[in-house]
């Protein structure tokens, strides 16, 4: 090969400025219009040779290198319209020439671009007139177009080829089928054209200087439709059935996508394939398409490709289509995604997780019963997170993990289904504490809203393990802010206890035991929310066991165990600062033990004793003390289980505490309330009327020491009312005489009262009481003996 310098090197030019571009485009368009008109005139005069010259002239405008792809497109369209006129003329056959002759004739043109545009135009007419088999013409045209290696010009020439031949492709049901060829010929034709166009398109990035690369890539991107149209055209061929697609179309497409090694092209073309071909085709070619994803260039957004594909298939199923199990869709995706992630180290973790999330959706839509598929996905996700040493510090990763974790909750709703997953929680651990708490909340909410009940200890264990961020702090540093949100969250967890349900008391108890282990971990601020419902539930269980006493001989032991449990839990609570609650709970326990019958006396005694001990050791505020005393009295009064000795011990202790209250009104009231422990109307045991009288006297004495006359009057009236109760129920020590004396005492004391508003109201209470006695006098002769002096 000989080299010879010829002519001075031309100045290398970048694209022109926008203004210069517009000018160049404008000028070129004018030429195209003028020459197009001239061509049309010649055609009207049936002077084909001259017309071809004009056509060649306006096509020559497309030889420019000055225009940006976008402007070149505008010019191309202009020329395209003119060429369609030429083709119409050729089809009218007024020229009297054989198409073969014309086909040769246009090939004498010295410049290749006009030559090929004309050749394609004539070729198109050649096919249309059926003077040659479509197949031969198509093959020839697509081959000859190789002469244009300039990316933009080549791309548009081939676009022209593709456009004018699109209605002339031999295909099933087309008029060009048969002698003109068959679908396979059309497929070959489009594939070759596609391959060449893609090569040119990819090559566009190397035009011009590196400085403008970004802009060029943008412009190149705008032309992607031209390349993609070929794939769409393949999908429109009637004769492209599954077999053809599988054996011919897809392998060729993938081969080109793979070998072009261009990020933009690979991304776009994969997406087009997924878009344009039917779901059924994809289902049968998953292997191939996923395999090729593994070899795409780094930088290709594989996530969007895979997600696109899987979402498509999910929708396919959602429309009611069935996927044959033989296709092993899940297995294929699962294993290939593994391969892809392994080979494409550059896929960000959040993308891998998004892919898995899509697979999860697909799996759930296609195989709603296959929980092991879901499990596989979580296993994979956790492996990826482990391999990539994720620590929950990347917001995007966290977002995807949360999405992945929420999907089974949103889908299965019933928490029992989710609990059956072996690997779900493995993924949770890659989140930080706050995120794990969010997951835990979601799990809890889902359980409460959608799960009728949880029936196994194992399930309880798992559930509470999963939501452990709500139950305990991760480290001592994490401070709990006991605000409304916290309360709401803890109440939510607490209400989980109500879901635990099993007809078998033993199993239910096992669940409570498990729950206790978890729920006790959280420290005072949490257990005050979490343990209380557990105690109530346990007591309910004990009472339930009592109801089975006729069928189940062992109920006693079982119930005992439950009470021991309740005792332990309450004791645990009492060790914190929650004394009042503990007192209340112990009394509650005692009541339950009472319900269960005599066998539980000791237990009940123990419970009340615990309440008293806590009272003594820890309850200090006077209001709290009064409340506790009232509660203790009320409870003791309602219990029927105790032996005399035990009862005596407890009541004595209670009376003692009552008499030690500091505030006078509190002490007075406690003392007169204690009377109920000595004498109860229908009880045979509690008939110690002497102690009632004793206590009443003591109460009067205490009240009398108080200085505020209105309050003092109140206390006297209250004691009077108390006495009326005993008189009504015929307690022997409280006689009409005694009541009369009390009324006289109150009358005497009321002289001392001032005229304040409190005093007036207090008096009114007294008047009401007296009115009651008066009304009683009319019906009950016993009341007649009560003397009322004042008016």
């Amino acid at each position: 090969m000989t080299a010879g310098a010829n002519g001075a090197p031309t100045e290398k030019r970048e694209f022109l400025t926008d203004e210069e571009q517009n000018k160049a485009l404008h000028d070129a368009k004018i030429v195209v219009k003028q020459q197009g008109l001239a061509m049309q005139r010649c055609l009207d005069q049936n002077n084909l040779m001259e017309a071809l010259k004009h056509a060649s002239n306006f096509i020559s405008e497309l030889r420019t290198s000055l225009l940006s792809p976008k402007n070149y497109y505008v010019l191309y369209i202009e020329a395209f319209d003119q060429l369609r006129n030429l083709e119409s003329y050729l089809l009218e056959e007024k020229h009297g020439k054989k198409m073969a002759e014309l086909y040769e004739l246009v090939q004498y043109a010295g410049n290749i671009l006009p030559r090929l545009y004309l050749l394609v135009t004539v070729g198109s007419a050649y096919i249309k007139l059926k003077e040659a088999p479509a197949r031969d013409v198509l093959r020839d045209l697509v081959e000859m177009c190789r002469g244009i290696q300039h990316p933009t010009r080549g791309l548009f020439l081939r676009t022209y080829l593709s456009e004018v031949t699109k209605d002339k492709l031999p295909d099933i049901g087309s008029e060009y089928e048969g002698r003109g060829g068959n679908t396979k010929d059309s497929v070959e034709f489009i594939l070759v054209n596609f391959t060449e166009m893609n090569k040119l398109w990819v090559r566009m990035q190397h035009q011009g200087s590196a400085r403008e690369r970004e802009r060029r890539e943008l412009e190149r991107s705008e032309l992607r439709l031209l390349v993609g149209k070929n794939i769409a055209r393949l999908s429109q061929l009637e004769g492209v059935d599954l077999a053809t697609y599988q054996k011919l179309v897809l392998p060729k497409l993938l081969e080109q996508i793979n070998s072009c090694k261009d990020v933009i092209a690979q991304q776009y073309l994969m997406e087009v394939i997924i878009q344009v071909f039917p779901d059924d085709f994809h289902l049968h070619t998953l292997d191939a398409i996923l395999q090729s994803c593994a070899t795409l260039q780094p930088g290709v957004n594989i996530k969007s490709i895979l997600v696109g594909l899987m979402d498509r298939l999910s929708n396919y199923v959602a429309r009611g289509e069935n996927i044959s199990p033989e296709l092993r869709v899940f297995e294929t995706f699962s294993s290939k995604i593994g391969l892809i992630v392994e080979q494409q180290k550059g896929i960000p973790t959040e993308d891998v997780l998004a892919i898995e999330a899509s697979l999860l959706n697909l799996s759930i839509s296609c195989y709603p019963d296959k929980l092991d598929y879901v499990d596989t996905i979580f296993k994979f996700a956790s492996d990826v997170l482990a391999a990539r040493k994720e620590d929950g510090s990347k917001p995007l990763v966290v977002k995807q993990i949360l999405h992945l974790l929420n999907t089974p909750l949103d889908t299965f709703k019933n928490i029992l289904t989710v609990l059956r997953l072996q690997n779900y929680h493995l993924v949770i651990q890659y989140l930080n504490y706050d995120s794990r708490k969010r997951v835990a909340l979601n799990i809890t909410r889902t359980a409460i809203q959608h799960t009728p009940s949880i029936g196994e200890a194992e399930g309880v264990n798992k559930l509470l393990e999963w939501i452990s961020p709500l139950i305990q702090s991760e480290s001592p540093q994490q401070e709990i802010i006991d605000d409304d949100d916290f309360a709401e969250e803890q109440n939510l967890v607490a209400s989980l206890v109500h879901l635990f349900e099993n007809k078998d008391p033993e199993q239910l108890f096992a669940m409570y035991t498990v729950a206790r282990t978890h729920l006790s971990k959280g420290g005072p601020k949490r257990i005050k929310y979490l343990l209380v419902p557990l105690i109530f539930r346990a007591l309910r269980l004990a009472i339930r066991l009592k109801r089975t006493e006729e069928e189940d001989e062992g109920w006693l032991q079982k119930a005992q165990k439950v009470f021991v449990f309740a005792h332990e839990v309450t004791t645990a609570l009492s060790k914190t600062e929650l004394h009042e609650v503990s007192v209340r709970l112990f009394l509650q326990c005692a009541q339950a033990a009472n319900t269960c019958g005599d066998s539980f006396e000791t237990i009940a005694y123990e419970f009340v004793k615990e309440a008293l001990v806590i009272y003594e050791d820890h309850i200090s505020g006077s209001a709290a003390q009064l409340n506790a005393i009232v509660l203790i009295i009320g409870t003791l009064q309602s219990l029927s289980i105790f032996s005399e000795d035990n009862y005596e011990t407890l009541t004595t202790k209670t009376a003692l505490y009552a008499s030690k209250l500091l505030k006078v009104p509190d002490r007075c009231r406690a003392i007169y309330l204690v009377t109920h422990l000595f004498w109860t109307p229908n009880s045979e045991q509690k008939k110690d009327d002497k102690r009632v009288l004793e206590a009443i006297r003591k109460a009067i004495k205490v009240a009398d020491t108080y200085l505020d006359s209105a309050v003092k009057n109140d206390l006297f009236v209250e004691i009077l009312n108390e006495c009326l109760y005993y008189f009504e129920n015929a307690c022997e020590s409280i006689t009409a005489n005694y009541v009369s004396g009390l009324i006289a005492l109150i009358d005497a004391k009321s002289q001392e009262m001032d005229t304040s508003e409190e005093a007036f109201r207090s008096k009114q209470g007294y008047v009401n009481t007296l009115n009651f006695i008066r009304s009683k006098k009319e019906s009950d002769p016993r009341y007649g003996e009560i003397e009322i002096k004042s008016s």
Partner: protein
Amino acid sequence: MNFFRSVLGGAAKIDIALKDAAERQVVEIPTSQEGKTEKLPLYIENEAVVGSVSITIDNSSKKLEHMGISVALVGVIKMNGNIHEFMNIVKDLEPAGILTENKSYDFNFETNDRSYESYNGINAFLNYYVRVNISRSMATKITKQIEFWQRNYSNPPDTNSNIKMEVGIEDCLHIEFEYNKSKYHLKDVIIGKIYFLLVRLKIKTMNISLLKRETTGSGPDVYNENRTLSKFEIMDGAPVRGEAIPVRLFLGGFDLTPTYKDVVNKFSVTYILNLVLVDEDDRRYFKQREIVLWRKADRAKKYTRIEGAQTYEEGLPTDGGRSPDEE
């Protein structure tokens, strides 16, 4: 003038008529004068040259004294002002005497060897004539000649291998080109491919031009005259490694002759395909290769299929030697 003729033995007019002139194919030949053409009867190979000569005696002289009348078939090469008759076959029509009335003679050059074609070249011309001479003693002879155009057909060449060459500039550009034949008839199509094996240049365009080279003289006086008959762009833009660019050049539209080698040891006409690559700095890289042209017997052209489309059917390697039909 008439006076002299009558004085010096009379005057006469010669007409030469070729047989079947009306039916015979004529060819339009550019003359040595720029832009002018003439139409000449066409004779193929050793076809007999048959015709008649009529002598018309000038009315004023009534008789013609002559030293003999003859007709000759003459082949002439004109080159740089020199004329060389390489053929001159003479037939006597009339012995010396006096012709008193108009007379016609038939002639028939039945056996002769016209193995050279008529040729109007740049510096060289080869022409055939039928020439009639009336020799006279005292006066100049009366001569009339008419030209006819000679063409010879060849049989298809026995061997016609394709042309395949790998050329290049080291580490810069390697291409392999392939033309389907080495010998083409004048209405033939050159079909070929250019394979780019290595491309490190920014190529802008690639052309094929068909050169005609007319060689005259011999030894130290040899002189070459080159003409570019066509410049044909076959590629636009920069190819990358692995591209195969198709070549299809129809010869029918050009004014071509067969290849002539050493015609009467006077001149030769050869044809050369010149492949030219031009890079972005307008540097040109080229490779020339001679092809042989031959004249094929005319026959009615039938368009049964696309010229050149046999690229596929006849297995001329397309890209990678794979034809799309194999699967």
